[in-house]
């Protein structure tokens, strides 16, 4: 009964084993990849472990407060600080081991040549509600 974020992003981790950009795949390989992701989510719904899954547009704007009465400043995108978050899945599972197993399965999604991508996914625990009994 703990929630984890399976985060697909490109910062800090080494390149995937099967590291071919998606636009170099065949259309069938792309379809197979998308099907794999959908099946994975559907399976987690059936096991009662799925919470949320979203994909993000590759680029966004940077926004910050610019003082009382002024519109927020927008800037970017900054190519040099690119930290592309491609998407995420939130799961609710009984153990950390289960979260790691599922992330491993998700990382096996097929890519170029129909072979698993072996991409690195980050597994981050959610901060939970505080327990009642602490002593």
């Amino acid at each position, binding site marked *: 009964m703990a929630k984890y974020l399976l985060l697909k992003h490109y910062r800090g981790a080494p390149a995937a084993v099967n590291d071919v950009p998606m636009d170099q795949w065949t259309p069938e390989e792309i379809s197979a990849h998308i099907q794999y992701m959908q099946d994975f989510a559907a399976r987690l719904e059936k096991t009662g472990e799925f*919470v949320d899954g979203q994909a993000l547009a590759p680029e966004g704007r940077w926004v910050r407060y610019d003082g009382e009465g002024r519109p927020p400043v927008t800037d970017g995108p900054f190519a040099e600080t690119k930290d592309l978050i491609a998407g995420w899945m939130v799961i609710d599972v009984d153990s950390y081991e289960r979260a790691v197993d599922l992330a491993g399965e998700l990382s096996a999604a097929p890519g170029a040549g129909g072979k698993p991508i072996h991409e690195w996914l980050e597994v981050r625990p959610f901060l939970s509600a505080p327990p009642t009994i602490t002593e």
Partner: protein
Amino acid sequence: MDEALLRSLTPSVLSVLVRRGADFAAAEDAVQDALVEAVRVWPERPPRDPKGWLVTVAWRRFLDATRADAARRRREEAVDKEPTPGPAPTADDTLRLYFLCAHPSLTPSSAVALTLRAVGGLSTRQIAEAYLVPEATMAQRISRAKRTVSGVRFDQPGDVATVLRVLYLVFNEGYSGDVDLAAEAIRLTRQLAAVIDHPEVAGLLALMLLHHARRAARTAPDGSLVPLAEQDRARWDTEAIAEGVGILQGALARDRLGEFQAQAAIAALHADAPTAGETDWVQIVEWYDELARLTDSPVVRLNRAVAVGEADGPRAGLAALAGLDDSLPRHCAVAAYLHERDGDLGTAARLYAEAARKAANLAERDHLTRQAARLNARFRH
């Protein structure tokens, strides 16, 4: 309409259906439907015999769902027009329902969900909201749990320890939404205590009551955590404490000590202290020793180190901490506290900040960050 009263009828209504030969999964669905119907109908037309009403409606729903024969259904509806109470289920039926819903073949989260629905009478939506997952996910979790236990014979005896672990989880872990899970856990444990005479069931009920008694004092108006030592003890619920202590004394008198009784005894000693300074830490350490013998849990040894630090001074606490794995949750927070008490504020500040980074929940993280900030501010003056 008292919804808790309505839901308290769930186990016996479900037992009646199962005794009449309905399979557990279908019977459970039918009882849920009947509960929904009761919430709709009872405010206008309260039944004379609430349980009989629920049995009739649930049985009819069960027949609707399992028999396509419309003519037969009409015949039976004519027969069943006047609600009749079903055969009186025994206390054993309710107990078996607890065993089934906490069956060892279920994962903890499945057992919790199934218990809250089939024993507690909560709807799938309420359970989903309490655990912050989509309703569809919770529905799948519950139906999967029902499939898992479908081969288990209803009349098989179970192990009460598995039931207690599930109820403990409901009490201790979960979010506070519309459903008050802590209060629900107390209600379910009380109901269990009524059908089985077992000192650990009483111990868990006492433990829950004693912790629940502090609830109003545990959080500040802004939602931040208030540590035990700083709580306004005037806000503790003295009635709940008295009830918890009474139940615990009855259990301890049976001389069959278990972990929940020992934990409750520690909570009772805290409840007994008019001020934090008057806490009987020596006795608390003794109870932790008992608890460590019973469970051999590293978390118990960690909490024992805190108690030793209070009873014999921070150096003794740090010595007790030294032998423990520092990857334990809250190890760092305990070390920070003991170092602060020992006067080593620099180390304490560093450890509080580290503990905040390792905290598993937001309220604790904020609390530990404030502790680090409080000490760091002193260095700047």
